[in-house]
């Protein structure tokens, strides 16, 4: 087992800023959203609604920049799902990690997501987040439903979809945060998302299927 470590520049400046901005936005949305949902009283309902609306719209706009970035830089290829080695990655997190086995698909510049990440991030970035933004936007525009011909919608259903997706997102965040501790050291992944530089094992070659032509 090779232990030669090599630092690679994995996340660009935009990517890192976007990640932490999104962290801030989603945290604010989660805290205020659950208050609007009536889970607790923290900022006060009125302030929670105002912040939630403002942050929600901010998220929607900044997400458009992210989509632009993903498409124009070709980074979208990092999100192409695959089943290859998916199960060995799953097996690693369920079993091998306890035995100190090496990661079956460590991150590389050309392929920063392992198959499990590809699948998860594709689901989150392409389905969960847009669906949450869309349901939130529709919820927010309740008073325009008449004018927009959306009267067939029910506020209750829209609100419940939005709430359900929020719970899904909350569960994702819990696991996502934990997974950051599974790097070479506990804070390795987080450090990488701050500095851009990740420590990876040097020896393993990038396989052809991972390159995504």
């Amino acid at each position, binding site marked *: 087992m090779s232990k030669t470590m090599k630092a690679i520049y994995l996340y660009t*400046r935009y990517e*890192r*800023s976007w990640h*932490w*901005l999104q962290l*801030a936005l989603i945290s604010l949305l989660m805290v205020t959203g659950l208050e*609007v*949902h*009536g889970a607790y*009283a923290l900022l*006060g*309902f*009125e302030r929670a*609604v*105002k*912040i939630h609306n*403002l942050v929600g719209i*901010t998220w929607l706009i900044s997400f458009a920049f992210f989509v632009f970035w993903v498409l124009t830089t070709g980074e979208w290829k990092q999100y192409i799902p695959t089943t290859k080695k998916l199960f060995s990655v799953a097996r690693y*997190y369920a079993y091998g*990690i*306890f*035995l*100190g086995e090496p990661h079956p698909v460590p991150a590389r510049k050309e392929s920063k997501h392992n198959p499990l990440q590809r699948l998860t991030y594709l689901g989150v970035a392409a389905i969960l987040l847009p669906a949450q933004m869309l349901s939130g936007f529709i919820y927010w525009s*309740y*008073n325009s439903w008449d004018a927009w011909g959306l009267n067939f919608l*029910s*506020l*209750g259903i829209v*609100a*419940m979809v939005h*709430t*359900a997706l*929020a*719970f*899904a997102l*909350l*569960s994702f965040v*819990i*696991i996502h945060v*934990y997974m950051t*501790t*599974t790097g070479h050291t506990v804070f390795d992944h987080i450090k990488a998302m*701050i*500095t*851009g530089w990740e420590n990876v094992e040097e020896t393993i070659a990038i396989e052809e299927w991972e390159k995504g032509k």
Partner: protein
Amino acid sequence: MQNKPIYLFILFAAAAFLFISTASARENEQVTGIKFADQSNINAEHWNTVDHSKFDALKKKFTAGHDITKACLSCHTEVKKQFMHAIHWTWLSPTGGGLTGKAGYSINNFCISTNKMHDTECNNCHIGWDKKNDGINCLKCHGQSQMDWHQEFKDLKEFQDTGETELVDEIESDIQKNVLKIGLPQRRNCGECHFNGGGGEGVKHGDLDASLIMPKKSLDVHMGIDGANFTCTRCHTTKNHLIAGRVYSTPATSARISLVQDDLAPKISCESCHTDQPHAQGSKPNDHTDRVACQTCHIPTFARAHATQMWWDWSSAGKLKKQRKYQQKDEYHRYSYKSIKGDFKWEKNVVPEYYWYNGSIKALTAKDIIDPSKQPVAMSWPVGSRDDKNARIFPFKVHRGKQPYDMENNTFLTPLLCIENNGYWKTLDWIDSCKRGMQIMGLPFSGKIGFVETSYVFPTTHMVAPRENALTCVQCHNRTHSRLAALTGFYMPGRDRSDLLDFSGWGIALAALAGILLHMLGRIFITAKKEED
């Protein structure tokens, strides 16, 4: 290079802060609703071309009320024609065909019925001399002196009969002087009846009582003497002596337009002056105005200065102490019991009940059959539902009580009450007072009297509080004690949720948390064990 993302983040945060602070600065600007209302109130000062003290018609000796009216009508020639049709005179609903109105078969759960105006005590509030028997009393609404005309003319006649000329002269000049004190109706004029309906101050309406004669702005922003200082007629505009604002079978106004859109629009609704988008541009309250009436948020409680009556139980009337009628008072110094009327409950700072309301109120009459097995029987109720596009959520005072009904005919009873005609207040005899009361109405009476619990509604529209005292969002948008808890059939953020969804949602999040904790413990212990090995 490694610090740059942090700079970027600070830049983002600064931009967000700027955005939020400009948004809140915009809210502190004067909102359109107040700007427009102020505009419509600029020329509120009344002016006229008449000095009544210079009229010969008023420079004479008056010996009876109708003499004064005759003098008024000698110049104001069309008044009689106008006023005789006014509901203030007829006490009959213009659309009820004689059925509805105080003088018809309309009833309530206060003094129940005027017995077609045979209950003379009720007629104190009729706008006529000698109750209703001696023509219109113009001074009831237009007189600005506090003179008790009835007493004054009685004294005059007495002294004339006994020949005490000096006193006669004094009273005559007194009357003459006070006749000249006339003007547009002031709060006290309207309030003489409308603050005292139901037999006492604050009995009927929760938002109309004597505290509105000289109110502070904190009680009523419009009428407050330190506020806009409105008289009643500022909003209750008048045409041919017909006064705007009656809300029973028909709404006070069905037009939801403002003076901004039509300078001849009625001035009776909030929107007349404040428009239907009165709050800061783009603010959430503006999104509510289509389904929530202004009053709902802006009248947080009614009866804020004087207590109002909430309960009247006729069934306990008639008790005696030492063979005599008696009465007791409560903490508000209002009667909690009267032998002639029964038990009362009074409340201050009352939280209204909220209903969908399209501006109309439906009410039962003495002719309607009731179902006493379903109590309380609603004697009047707001018309409207969420499906009614014209209905909005509106605050109400609901007066409840118990009152007599005919156990065989299942109709309400209309006992004759007044002392003058030997009614219940003199005899404490239910059978006799109901028999005679129903006879006057021309309605059957089986002789079997029971008591039934009833409710009666009043829309709450006066006592608009300063805006800092308006309801906040959370008073309705909360799970456990929403003011709108009783209004169901629609989803309200903060109030409503799906228990199943919440249970599963929190369940999944907790399962994720438990999963990672186990995983983490596994990593810690197994790795530690490996190192030991």
